[in-house]
């Protein structure tokens, strides 16, 4: 094949979409090819764990329709995955035998679920959730399930627990750590969050390991350190592993994710970038490298790489933010907290609202909110502008009030 080499993107998710839509919006006019392993148009994952999907037609999660790619001359190869990178020849090789040369290669392969390492994980009625197809399977299983056991008290587990509850099931969440959301949310905010889940009817067992799943073909019981739980549906969400095997096999630096520089280029080969869940990168808010799993990170990294290839390079420094809808609880996080930060919990202006302000050396670095989107947005505006907020500034007013006051001052100035 003698076509000119353009951009090849491996992966058909949120980050891949962000790269290719940005490339075309920025005026890039060389060939753009996307290899997407799944047979579906690039889609959003967050809704998959926040509603029970039972009908394929009820699942409209694609980011944009097929015409979007056609109109922009983006060669979208659904259902074909890249099996090897030939970095010497600057070519990718796909399962169906396609060989496509690239001037720039972008890895946007996302992550896969960490498998449940206990006997019985392969029984019928045991599911993990990552794809549209998984969501449909779980949604259908919930039509008949009475006893649902969720293994893992992280975002996806808690979202699913609340979905199962609305479908009339008895729900138990089993978590090995001594609290829920141990990596993502402060202990201060976790307490009220847990109370609210329990109040809604979710049984929460923390500090409890799962030893085995049992049943004749289909799961019937979950054996834990403490007790045996009846179960006709088990859903597990115990973390994700970046899909970095292609990069590793091609000899690129990999360390729980493809290692990239501040412009998101592989530290081994500057013609290759990595974005989204599969990238491990520097960030001004942390020491060392981080790998983030969020929509914001996938979109912003894709945008940065798309613009860079189209001629406007920049460093990645977007403020990380995240949300999770767990039944009637909207949890939002702005900024990156570390375990040693001091968190002050502050009640909102109505009983269901709460904020946790995280301070490092007396400076505000992250904000967690429950059911308080305006406070979350105010936090993002202030943290994005690197406005220094001291603990004393928040002795009375909310961030919302501070942000409004500062905006008014800017307008007057």
């Amino acid at each position, binding site marked *: 094949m003698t076509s000119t080499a353009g951009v090849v993107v491996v992966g058909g998710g949120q980050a891949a979409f962000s790269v290719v*839509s940005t490339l075309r*919006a920025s005026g890039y006019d060389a060939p753009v090819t996307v290899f997407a392993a799944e047979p579906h148009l690039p889609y*959003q994952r*967050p*809704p998959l764990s*926040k509603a029970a999907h039972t009908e394929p037609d009820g699942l409209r*999660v694609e*980011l*944009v*329709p097929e*015409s*979007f790619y056609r*109109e922009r001359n983006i060669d979208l190869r659904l259902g074909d995955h890249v099996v090897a990178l030939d970095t010497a020849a600057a070519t990718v090789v796909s399962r169906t035998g396609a060989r496509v040369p690239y001037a720039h290669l972008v890895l946007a392969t996302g992550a896969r679920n960490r498998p449940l390492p206990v006997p019985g994980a392969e029984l019928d009625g045991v599911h993990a959730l990552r794809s549209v197809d998984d969501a449909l399977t779980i949604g259908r299983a919930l039509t008949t399930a009475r006893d649902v056991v969720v293994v893992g008290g992280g975002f996806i587990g808690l979202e699913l627990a609340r979905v199962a509850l609305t479908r009339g099931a008895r729900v138990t969440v089993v978590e090995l750590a001594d609290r829920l959301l141990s990596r993502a949310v402060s202990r201060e905010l976790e307490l009220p969050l847990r109370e609210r889940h329990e109040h809604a009817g979710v049984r929460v067992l923390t500090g409890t390991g799962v030893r085995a799943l049992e049943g004749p073909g289909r799961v019937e019981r979950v054996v834990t350190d403490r007790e045996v739980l009846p179960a006709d549906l088990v859903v597990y969400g115990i973390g994700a592993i970046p899909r970095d095997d292609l990069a590793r096999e091609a000899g690129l630096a990999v360390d729980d994710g493809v290692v990239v520089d501040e412009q998101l280029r592989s530290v081994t080969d500057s013609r290759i970038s990595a974005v989204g869940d599969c990238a491990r990168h520097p960030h001004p808010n942390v020491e060392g490298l981080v790998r983030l799993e969020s*929509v*914001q990170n996938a*979109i*912003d990294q894709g945008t940065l790489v798309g613009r860079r290839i189209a001629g406007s390079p920049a460093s990645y420094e977007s403020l990380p933010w995240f*949300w999770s*809808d767990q039944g009637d609880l*909207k949890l*939002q996080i702005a900024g990156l907290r570390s375990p040693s930060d001091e968190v002050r919990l502050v009640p909102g202006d109505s009983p269901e609202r709460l904020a946790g302000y995280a301070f490092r050396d007396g400076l505000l670095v992250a904000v967690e909110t429950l059911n308080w*989107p*305006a406070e*979350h*947005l*105010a936090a*993002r*505006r202030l943290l994005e502008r690197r406005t220094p907020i001291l603990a004393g500034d928040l002795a009375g007013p909310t961030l*919302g009030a501070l*942000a*409004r006051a500062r905006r008014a001052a800017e307008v007057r100035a």
Partner: protein
Amino acid sequence: MPTVIFQLPDGTERKVIAASGTVLMQAAVSGGVEGIVAECGGNASCATCHVYVDSAQAELVGPPNDVEDEMLDFTAAERRPTSRLSCQIHLSDALDGLVVHVPEEQV
């Protein structure tokens, strides 16, 4: 099925035929309207689906709901009297011909 018109910051215009029962944000995204980012997919979590409703139609569309109203104070582009989050505008035939202006920035 209402037709809605998005006026983009560069002066161009995009006409989109919305599927019935959808929200304005979805119509923009399905129509590939650049400038409606909709990071949270319509969950009133992100404020990246901000639009200005054409003043002639503002009354027809109505005011923002309470949470939306608070969030609009923190959009990336300035808030104006007709600012709305497009994921909170439910489309119906009554809104056929709706014109909205897409702000310069969303994030």
